[in-house]
């Protein structure tokens, strides 16, 4: 029982800390902006924010959530006008080809997908994938041709970053950006100023720091649910082990009685049991700690790979 508790505690602690740290680092490293302004359909542009005090840069971010038939979950689709400009703000996107903007412009309904899903689904350049507006995949957006691959391993937990040309984005979805990403030395005061100016609109501004905290809170909730499942499993395991121990003790009662009647005093018998207990606890405890760390490393990398992250 002691061993199982140690094993589970070590595995869970390493896993939860690992997932939280990876998520926090990934989100922080991939976001090279200080304030996110979500437009919620309001007609506003980055140029409207450049006159704010301490704002050093702003970018219209054309984003939308689609559901592709080639991957699980949603894909964050970016309309790309100038990749270099977008990449300065969203550092999670890494492309090592020549000219992404030209590639997307020259490929009819061309998209660039993450190399992780390309590897998993054995996708090649020229393959056609279908995108839908809903998770049930009933509302089809259209068929798209894979024009190339990029790596978004640090920016998302599902590796669902997809790039299409800005022209395609604007003709298929909307010509209004989804967000405006802002760079500033004073995020708090900029958020306050935006909130005051756009008080009666659906525009919402939040600092990147706050956004990351919210994302980590979501990760915490997920970990909490995972933990609850593991604790439930552990309780069942512990009940099984206690039952085995009781049966084993009852089985050995006769042995203790023989030892006591033939040669042992009560103290010697108690000492023997104590040493047996200590030896089992220490030896198996040590094995559990080592196995716990090894298993959790293995689980962490497997879990991360399963969701597209690279650890």
């Amino acid at each position, binding site marked *: 029982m002691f061993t199982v508790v140690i094993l589970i505690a070590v595995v869970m602690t390493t896993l939860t800390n690992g997932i939280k740290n990876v998520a926090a680092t990934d989100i922080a490293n991939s976001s090279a902006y200080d304030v996110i302004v979500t437009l919620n359909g309001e007609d506003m542009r980055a140029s409207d924010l450049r006159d704010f005090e301490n704002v050093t840069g702003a970018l219209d971010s054309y984003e939308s959530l689609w559901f592709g038939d080639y991957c699980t979950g949603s894909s964050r689709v970016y309309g790309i006008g100038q990749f270099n400009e977008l990449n300065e703000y969203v550092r999670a996107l890494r492309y090592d080809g020549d000219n992404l903007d030209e590639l997307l412009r020259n490929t009819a309904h061309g998209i660039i997908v993450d190399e992780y899903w390309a590897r998993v689904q054995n996708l090649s350049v020229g393959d056609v994938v279908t995108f839908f507006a809903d998770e049930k995949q009933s509302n089809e957006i259209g068929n798209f041709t894979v024009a190339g691959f990029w790596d978004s391993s640090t920016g998302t937990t599902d590796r669902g970053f997809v790039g299409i040309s800005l022209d395609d984005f604007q003709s298929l979805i909307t010509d209004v950006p989804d967000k405006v990403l802002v760079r500033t030395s004073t995020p708090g005061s900029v958020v306050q100023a935006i909130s005051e100016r756009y008080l009666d609109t659906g525009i919402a501004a939040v600092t990147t720091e706050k956004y990351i905290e919210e994302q980590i809170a979501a990760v915490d909730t997920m970990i909490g649910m995972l933990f609850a499942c593991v604790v439930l499993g552990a309780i069942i395991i512990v009940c099984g082990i206690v039952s085995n121990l009781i049966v084993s003790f009852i089985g050995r009662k006769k042995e203790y009685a023989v030892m006591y*009647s033939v040669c*042992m*005093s009560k103290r010697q018998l108690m000492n023997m049991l104590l040493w047996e207990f200590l030896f089992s606890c220490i030896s198996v405890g040590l094995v559990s700690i080592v196995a716990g760390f090894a298993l959790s490393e293995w689980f962490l990398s497997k879990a991360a790979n399963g969701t597209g992250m690279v650890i």
Partner: protein
Amino acid sequence: MSSGEVFVNGKNIADMSDKEKSVMRRTNMGFVFQFYNLVQNLTIKENILLPIVMDGKKASGYEEKIDRIFIVSIFLSSFIFGRA
């Protein structure tokens, strides 16, 4: 038995401590159980050596003696039952 006293080697066992009683059992008494009562995790030899070891003596001094008992036992059983 509702009353009386039991003396072993001139000592009343009611006056003995638990330790003294266990020493008395392992040094002055032999046990023949009605049923098969061995410690299952130990070999026959280790079962026989157990009281000796518990008495603080070294098992090595007694192993040869036990081996000889085994040989005699095997000889007797083959003599009585026709097989070892």
